[in-house]
């Protein structure tokens, strides 16, 4: 019931969002007569598809097992899925003490994802309006430390998740670095590498799972 209801709402809001997404471009065309021709629009589409097209398809799939259906609708509409939604969902799940793979876990993840939307939307609104006045007032020590936010965030959250199963955690981050380095050298698109690392995480988990089972059986 719960899933069905949310999926229905999610699909409706996704459909509306697709329309709203084009509103500014269409409005500017109607109000100011500034509108690229159809062939130019197709060219622009080709350009962004060539650059980001693989991510459009692969990212939602790679994040799906972690986000679930409701989380995917909120997450991909609000964006910043890896940076903001997932850390928030994962902390919410940790504090509620739910177990991976259960329905309760997914529900709490959705609560966390929603909270993160409220917080990030308010902060972006605030900074868009007053940012140009406030940011220059911050000490340079603080503003230059902003460039360390993401590595620090992911370093902290990764150990928090990996310590539940240390062997898997260590092997997966090593695997991730090898895949990212090697893939980068071979020129494999970033989107494919994302999926590759997620699959590596699953395979490494599987490896230890089977090994443990055999040990128990022996």
């Amino acid at each position, binding site marked *: 019931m719960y899933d069905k*209801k949310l999926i229905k*709402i999610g699909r409706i809001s996704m459909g509306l969002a697709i329309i709203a997404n084009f509103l500014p471009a269409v409005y500017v065309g109607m109000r100011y007569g500034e509108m690229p021709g159809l062939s130019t629009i197709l060219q622009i589409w080709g350009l*962004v598809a060539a650059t980001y097209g693989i991510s459009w398809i692969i990212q939602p799939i790679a994040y799906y097992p972690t986000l679930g259906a409701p989380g995917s*609708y909120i997450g991909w509409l609000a964006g910043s899925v890896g*940076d903001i939604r997932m850390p928030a969902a994962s902390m919410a799940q940790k504090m509620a003490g739910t177990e991976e793979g259960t329905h309760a876990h997914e529900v709490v993840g*959705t609560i966390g994802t929603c909270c993160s939307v409220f*917080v990030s939307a308010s902060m972006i609104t605030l900074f868009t309006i007053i940012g140009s006045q406030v940011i220059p007032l911050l000490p340079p020590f603080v503003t230059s430390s902003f460039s360390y936010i993401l*590595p620090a965030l992911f370093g902290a959250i990764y150990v928090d998740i990996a310590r539940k199963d240390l062997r898997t955690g260590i092997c997966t981050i090593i695997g991730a670095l090898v895949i990212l380095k090697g893939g980068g050298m071979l020129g494999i698109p970033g989107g494919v590498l994302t999926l590759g690392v997620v699959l590596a995480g699953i395979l490494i988990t599987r490896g230890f799972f089977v090994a443990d089972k055999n040990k128990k059986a022996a």
Partner: protein
Amino acid sequence: MNFQAIINSPGIWIVSAFLVIISVSQAVVFMRAALKEATECGINKEKKAAAIRSACITAIGPSLSPVITLLSLVAVVGAPTTWMRLCDVGAARTELGVISLTSGMLGVEAGTEAFGMQAWTYGLWGMALNNFGWLFVVFILGHRMSGVVEKMNSKYDPAWIKKLMAGATVGLFAYLLGNQIQSLATPKLMPAAIAAVVMIVLGTALKKYQRLQELSLGIAMLVGMFVTQAVLGA
């Protein structure tokens, strides 16, 4: 009307607001449904409150990370467009990337005098078409993929499916961390390593203090950032 006045006009604010409103309203509806469902799953009030607090606190830090890019985006495409595009899919650097791609079509550089109405319109279309990719894929796939887990649970060993989901999450966060530190450069490794150590220490030291644990990710992140800045800065 000059270019700067147009890109910051009330009309643009209004047409940019729809997507933000849809996104936040959807979150409100999902939040209410999920809170109700959580009660039915046997999650008590204290745990729900703890989950909400920790998610909100955790979201503050990473929401700050695009702030510097946000300011440069405001200068290039105007406040309403920046606001809309940072509240929807596509990170700040992605939006900037799209704008420089589409301006490149016109032989114009973003942020210069030459970036006018036409380049801005190209940018609007570029960002809309790029975001459409994600929205459309989720619109098409979202409902088809639900139920996959139940099907797998009935087909395979549920203990393994649980592990599989955990493995996918570890893999995803390994990707996110790996993507940051893959250059193995000190300015990336150092904040990650310091924050990781602080996180472990806090997790162990605060085991008994549930309330403080909610802050642990935020604290670990701040320590990682500031210590790195103090050591490498200036």
